[in-house]
């Protein structure tokens, strides 16, 4: 009886996540091609030149193991860990050849293990 109930509940989740669009695609810059206008999560390595005007940040994002680069425009909190060579990810959309990041969605990975440096999120 218990097993059936749990199985039933599980089925509900699977349905929910599939119907609700099943999460956001997580991509590297080289994979952005087929996703014009859709909201995705973009992950990669920061490359220069990095320009900062007030709260807007402009930089290049490259495949972690590759050469494809996309230009990114982002407004919002930026972790102090952010700099060229660091791995980051953020949400946003590809528009007119430039990836426009969602406000406060930029997360910079810390170079060492066990350390979190988000600029937004959660409770």
């Amino acid at each position, binding site marked *: 009886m218990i097993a059936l109930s749990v199985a039933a509940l599980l089925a509900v989740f699977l349905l929910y996540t599939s119907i609700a669009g099943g999460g956001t695609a997580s991509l590297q810059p080289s994979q952005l091609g087929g996703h014009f206008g859709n909201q995705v999560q973009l992950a990669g390595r920061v490359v220069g030149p990095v320009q900062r005007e007030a709260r807007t940040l402009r930089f290049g994002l490259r495949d972690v193991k590759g050469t494809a680069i996309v230009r990114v425009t982002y407004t919002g909190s930026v972790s102090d860990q952010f700099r060229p060579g660091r791995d980051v990810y953020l949400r946003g959309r590809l528009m007119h050849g430039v990836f426009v990041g969602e406000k406060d969605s930029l997360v910079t990975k810390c*170079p060492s293990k066990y350390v979190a440096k988000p600029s937004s999120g*959660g409770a």
Partner: protein
Amino acid sequence: MPELGRSALVVALGLAVYATFAGALAARRRKRRLAVSAQNALLAAFAATAVAAAVLVAALVRRDLSFVYVAQHISRELPLRYAITAFWGGQEGSLLLWLLVLTGLGAAAVAFGRRAGPDVIAWTVPVLGGVATFFALLVVAIESPFATQAAPPEGAGMTPSLQNPYMIAHPPMLYLGYVGLAIPWAFAMGALLARRADERWIVATRRWTLLAWAFLGVGQLLGAKWAYEEVGWGGYYAWDPVENAALMPWLAATAYLHSVMIQEKRGMLRVWNVVLVTLAFGLSLFGTFLTRSGVVNSIHAFAQGPIGVWFVGFIALVVAFSLYLLFTRLPLLRSRTRLESLVSREATFLYNNLLLVAFCLTILWGVLFPILSEAVRGETRTIGPGYYSFFLKSFGLPLLLLMGIGPLIAWRRASVKALGRTFLWPLAAAVAAGVVLLALGAGSSPLGLSAYTFCAFVLGSIALEFARGTRARRALGASSWRGAFAQLVAHNRRRYGGYVVHAAVVLLVIGVVGSSLFQTVREQSLRPGETMTAGDYTLVYRKLERRQAANAEQERAVLGVSRGGRDLGTIRSGKNLYPVEQQASNEVAIRSDPLTGEDLFVIADQIDTDGTVYFKVFVKPLVNLVWVAGLVFVLGALVAMWPDPREARRLATRAARPPAHARA
């Protein structure tokens, strides 16, 4: 000295292998001396691991940079207490800690767990030995903490945000929790291997499970506090895979703690309990794996080493082993009693279990989704906090309600009429609270209001339970009200300790709801002299200070705070720059109001060279209840765990042999 460390670990590995194979042989052939020998090997493995750990600690204290591990995690100027905590700061050291805690807790649990029965103990030893063998193999052959090099002039240093008192306590507590969950699992496997269907192993491991669960809970709260103060993004939980990795086994363990009570009292749910304890231990292994492999996209930059494959293999082995034993012993475990009524305490425990496990599995699904979607669709898809929040609310609110209902319902069955009378007071409390809160403006979030009224209901029901129980004790002849209360708790520590823990959960919910659903956020760029408001507070940015500390350059924006015209003093928010580690850290300003538990949280997000600062200000009502809840949680767990001399005496007389009836 690294040679001593390496050889000590080889000795530990040998002992673990011996404990596994000799222990299994001894259990199978029922050989007493061999069984004792295997048990001794487990304890000796702890001693050997402790020697290796001591070598590593000594190297850290001495700042011996010829140890690769030491050079990677400390610098010469690092304060001593943080140099020591670097022990678990990296892959190799944390695995060594796992082994140390496992062999230590394992040896102790086996030594003090005699009431599980000698045949169960005989099988538990090789199971623990098997787990120890895995971890010993890792630290000996794959990720040794004792690699050496020509000592460099300076170490890599420790990430500044880890140099924090919370980080001294958080990892060891989590480890005691994670590893501690191996104990009930090992005993469960031991019982199955010994072909036992009774509850003795549960009674024997009860306090160990409580201990592990309590440490895991406190460890998570410490981590949340660290994230709140040190990482400083304005929150304390972000549904990051690493955070979820600790939450999942804790939820499974919570479900397990409840369902074993049903097995003890009514002999039901035997199979379910074995499944739960395997889920809890499996998830704790999975959590350990998640924090060190590179499989999911997380704010943590994980090492992409070979260790991931080993962990996945071991987890698969553990699960397969548990399921195999379960299936082959299934006829033995069939319960003799059935659920008598859907309105009974057993039933509420069951609903509680379903909700907790469902929530746990939804989180697991969310964590695994990127991996699964990659495998199935070739495209990695991530799941955001919205998914987790939805299920937290969907499962959390009913669970909250159950916490209030459960204690008031009797075992076996309860009549609806009796329930109506019992629920009167708590319901009244809930309605009254709801009305008051509505008047205070909590209607701005209907969800928050509902959560608060549920909390009032639960607190009302807990208070009622204590009141009724104390009154009954008094009628039974207790000398005074205080005496009656003390007797009440002493005669049933688990139950009343559990109620205190429920109260802690309620406090946690109030804190979480207040600081998320009723918080205010304001962002503004200010030049020196300018003002901004957030909620009831007015902040004036006075000036920017720069100071040189021991290992950092400190930049602080000084702000004057006032509320309703009254001056509340100054706060400082800014950043630290660490030249050795080449890193900066956020140093947020938190002003806690002792009366309301509210926090004013200020981040100096961006500091320009001309002194202009971009501020992010949060007003978080009731957030300090989250930390208070932690203290209440510890109190409740202690009460529940506290040794009961009457119970001990009863179990001792049970184990004593009967007088020999020698009659001609």
